[in-house]
């Protein structure tokens, strides 16, 4: 049996959570003071994911950089693969919110999309 310790992020309480696991199976969640803590803990130990945000260089735009994000959550352990895949990436203006900047970032199957409009100048 494995014990995982987490801090709940659902509210400022920050309850210290203890999760008992058997393989990939959650046996119990303790330390939470509300239901949200239980839900958070189960997700975080079985399938932790994050949205990753960054910026890439823009050529010929009204700004030097355009902000980007993964269109959806990606597995937490793929964060750095995803960030590294953006190294050296440049896009030509214009760029608009939602435009795909890099498909299948870091082998996650998730696209990186622009989160800002940068017009051509």
């Amino acid at each position, binding site marked *: 049996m494995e014990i995982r310790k987490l801090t709940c992020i659902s509210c400022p309480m*920050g309850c210290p959570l203890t999760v008992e696991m058997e393989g990939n199976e959650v046996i119990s969640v303790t330390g939470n003071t509300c239901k949200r803590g239980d839900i958070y803990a189960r997700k975080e130990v079985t399938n932790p994911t994050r949205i990753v945000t960054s910026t890439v260089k823009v050529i010929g735009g009204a700004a030097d950089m355009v902000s980007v994000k993964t269109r959806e959550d990606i597995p937490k352990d793929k964060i750095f693969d995803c960030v590294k895949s953006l190294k050296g990436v440049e896009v030509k203006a214009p760029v608009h919110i939602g435009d795909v900047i890099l498909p299948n970032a870091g082998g996650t199957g998730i696209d990186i999309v622009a989160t800002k409009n940068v017009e051509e100048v």
Partner: protein
Amino acid sequence: MKSYDIVIIGGGPAGLAAAVSAKRNGIDSILILERDKELGGILNQCIHNGFGLHTFKEELTGPEYAQRFIDQAKELEIEYKLNTMVMDISPRKIVTAMNRQEGLFEIEAKAVILAMGCRERSRGALNIPGYRPAGIFSAGTAQRLVNMEGLMPGREVVILGSGDIGLIMARRMTFEGAKVKVVAELMPYSGGLKRNIVQCLDDYGIPLKLSHTVVDIKGKERVEGVTLAEVDSKGKPIPGTEEFYTCDTLLLSVGLIPENEISNGMGVEMNPVTSGPKVNESLETSIEGVFACGNVLHVHDLVDFVSEEAATAGRNAAAYVKGERRSAQGHEIRFLPVDGVRYTVPVTLNTARMDENLTVRFRVGAVYKNCYVGVYFDNERVIHRKRQIVAPGEMEEIKLTKEQLLKYPDLETITVKIEEA
């Protein structure tokens, strides 16, 4: 001289939401004056996600959240000027502004909405001893360099202050290849959101040292390292606890200050606790027809509440211009923040002017667990709300209704306090 019904100072989230709301409440003649080259304010450099959960029921990044409001403002054909600095505003609402194209010019306003936002506290405000080399940045300046210009402020970073910008920058610098060694926080608790501590520090193994501060900065040309020390309950460094960290960068995330130089120049009455104007239930300052909202009024932690507050200011400014503002019959009821409650916004209310509902926002001065938020109409307790936790980093609110207030025609003081269980 050009004249507008409403001139809004600042085109960030507060200014945009105020403009949109004023327009929807029937005012056509609106002008936003923005000092930067684009609308959106500080959101443009806040590229992380987590904005908009309350307003749009989805998680947006800062630029996306800003764009939603920019799109609304453009759809409503609200006029704005970019790269324009407001130099001062006279008490009679003559706005003096300047830009490259028009030079120095004046605009007459029937109503003014102050939405200038805030600035970061600097090293000087903390009197951190040591050298003054390159490599000391406020977290927001570093954020601008990395996110807007693609420039790395440093490779090895120590962060002082666990405000949200500092936490966000810890993760951001890590993503760009820097090593963030430690985050030090003077207080025994973090000023940032729990979620940011977990997702910006814990996820990357960055230690957070509570009750610690920087006591020395080494390096004559570029930062070479900083010394941290533990502090006692009064915030004084404890001798013998010093620990040296090699680094080339010190980021400061040590608080935000509403940027009220223009308000001061006009003679607006200020609240020394918030460093923002004193406002009534209409978010109107001590000068009639001058309203304030967003971080210039008091520093917020969630932009959603900025937008909500700004919409209220915009609606009230519109009513003022239309002459619909219910006359100031009745009397001013005063808010009294005590026992752990540091301030309230607004500071007064008048039932003759108020809407059916009023949101009163406040902050507490320390962390309280299992406590109650108590609201007293004079000596009678009317609200006694259980809270598992309240913390200085998270703004609190209470809702009052006109119906409820009208039952107390002689009410003078509304006391808001934290009551321990």
